[in-house]
């Protein structure tokens, strides 16, 4: 019978990564079980990529323990990597080879016999909707196709664990949905996945369980719905009005409030009883002769959880990351 460590695809204990004096990952603990899609959600620079790199053996641990399929990544990297599929954040397809050759040559690195490699290549290209591009060179592909090919390439060894580092960053919405669709199909087939992302929608669409990370620390862990439930409740009421009254408003609504958050000029009130909250607020506004310039009741999402935990939005780092991605081939980014 498989023991506990065998049912765990990943076990991280006090996992730490430092670059000089900068701590990218700070004594992080988590487990990923077989068959689940586990998300690392956080803004850029949170330490997601550093964690992913340690798992696929590209970055040595500074401290702590990291077991993948019960094996220590620091001593048995080759055996572990044979069971992994890795989609790194940056495109690293082989630009001097065609689409087909990219898969066939990659198969040789895993020691897959040529006949089996050819069969899998055909299957994967058809699954990824790339059959028409089989003899194209990589540079002729669109960004979305390159991503799909990178994911397809990661499937060549029929991996037990697929690691996806920001799989849809930089893609347009259509290409992003194409990728999500394929990943959902892989999930249904039972592929274990570890996904890093700073898109809350990606995390909610794909992840069974996730951790929210900021500045190298885990802030929360759970299923998307449980996290929303426990931190912010069902509804969010966004309000813009005279901000000197915000404290008073929070106080007035407090019997119904789960929590609240003030960003810039917007007050967000969280509650499990959205409509009651609206009614109560309307009374307050009427009594104080206030007219809100903006008011909206909406369902809560993971972004609210993140906002609640850190006081900032997930997209904060977005612009910076786009610049640094184009800024050169070398990426020391955490």
């Amino acid at each position, binding site marked *: 019978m498989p023991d506990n460590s065998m049912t765990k695809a990943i076990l991280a204990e006090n996992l730490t990564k430092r670059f000089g004096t900068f701590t990218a990952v700070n004594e992080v603990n988590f487990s990923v079980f077989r068959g689940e899609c586990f998300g690392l959600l956080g803004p850029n620079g949170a330490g997601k990529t550093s964690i992913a790199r340690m798992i696929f053996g590209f970055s*040595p641990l500074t401290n702590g323990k990291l077991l993948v399929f019960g094996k220590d990544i620091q001593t048995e990297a*080759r055996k572990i990597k044979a069971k992994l599929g890795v989609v790194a954040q940056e495109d690293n397809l082989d630009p001097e*080879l065609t689409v087909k*050759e990219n898969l066939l040559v990659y198969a040789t690195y895993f020691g897959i016999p040529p006949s089996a490699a050819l069969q899998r290549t055909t299957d994967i290209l058809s699954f990824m909707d790339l059959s028409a591009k089989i003899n194209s060179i990589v540079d002729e592909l669109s960004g979305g196709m390159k991503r799909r090919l990178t994911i397809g390439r990661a499937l060549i060894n029929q991996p037990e664990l697929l690691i996806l580092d920001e799989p849809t960053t930089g893609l347009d919405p259509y290409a992003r949905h194409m990728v999500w669709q394929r990943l959902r199909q892989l999930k249904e087939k039972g592929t274990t996945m570890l996904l890093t992302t700073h898109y809350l929608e990606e995390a909610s669409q794909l992840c069974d369980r996730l951790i929210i990370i900021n500045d190298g620390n885990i802030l929360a862990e759970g299923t998307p719905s449980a996290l929303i439930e426990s931190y912010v409740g069902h509804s969010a009421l966004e309000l813009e009005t005279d901000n000197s009254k915000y404290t008073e408003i929070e106080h007035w609504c407090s019997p119904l409030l789960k929590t609240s958050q003030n960003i810039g000029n917007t007050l967000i009130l969280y509650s499990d009883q959205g409509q009651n909250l609206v009614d109560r607020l309307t009374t307050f506004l009427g009594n104080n002769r206030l007219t809100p310039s903006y008011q909206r009741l909406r369902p809560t999402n993971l972004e609210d959880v993140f906002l609640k935990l850190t006081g900032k939005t997930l997209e904060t780092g977005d612009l910076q990351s786009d610049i640094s991605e184009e800024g050169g081939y*070398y990426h020391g980014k955490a």
Partner: protein
Amino acid sequence: MVKLKSFLRAMITKPDLNLRSSFKVFNRNLKVFRKTWKSNLMFNFLEPVLYLWAMGFGLGIYINEINGLSYLEYLAPALIASSAMFATTYEMTYSSFTRMGYQKVFHGIAVTPVSMDDIVLGEIIYGTFKGVVYGLVFFLVVVIFGVVESPLALLMIIPLSLMALIFSNLSLIWTSIAPNYDSFGYFFTLFISPMFLFAGVFFPIENLPEGIHFLALLTPLYHTVAIIRPLVLGQLSWDFISHLIWLTAIALVTLRIPLIMVKNKLIK
């Protein structure tokens, strides 16, 4: 200081090598080479042929003999070695830099069961192979020019391989610290071109000023030419042994360094 310490520690650590994996990386490069070898070979092959024409026939007719040889006989065998040297150094600087940097080919391979050490050794094997191929192609030219006098000449593949291996190692060391493409200009201007000009290809090193003789003796090209030239002309000499020992020793001593330095560059 910390860097030097960790480097020295790495020097005495066993590399994480699997020779079969290294050959997979070599095969990847070979596959790409097969797509472009025609234009590629032409480019690297034409230049020494031009040298042979310009120096051997143009300049050569003014030179009666050099160490008892016609200038063509003197020059042509040495150009086999320098042709290999250039092929290897170009491949292991500009092209390797592209693969490990801009293209991120190494990054893609390193997440498979192939280790970074395997990848770098695969590069070294490829760089060596490429030097030998270009050396052999130029050898054919030398045959056509009627300079080769004995089948013994084919033994030149031994010193040629050792030399190409050394240049693979040295070039990759430079590549691992090169911040950009421009920095390869220094490598060629400071090391490779002076070697080509002064290490016994065009004239005997005895003609160099007394004080800098030893510089030529320190170059892999000199020791290689010192074996290949007599071999091509069908002569064997006991001197070969010391040259071969020198080449083997340098090849082995420098082999571990690029494995460490490329890894340090890419894996943080």
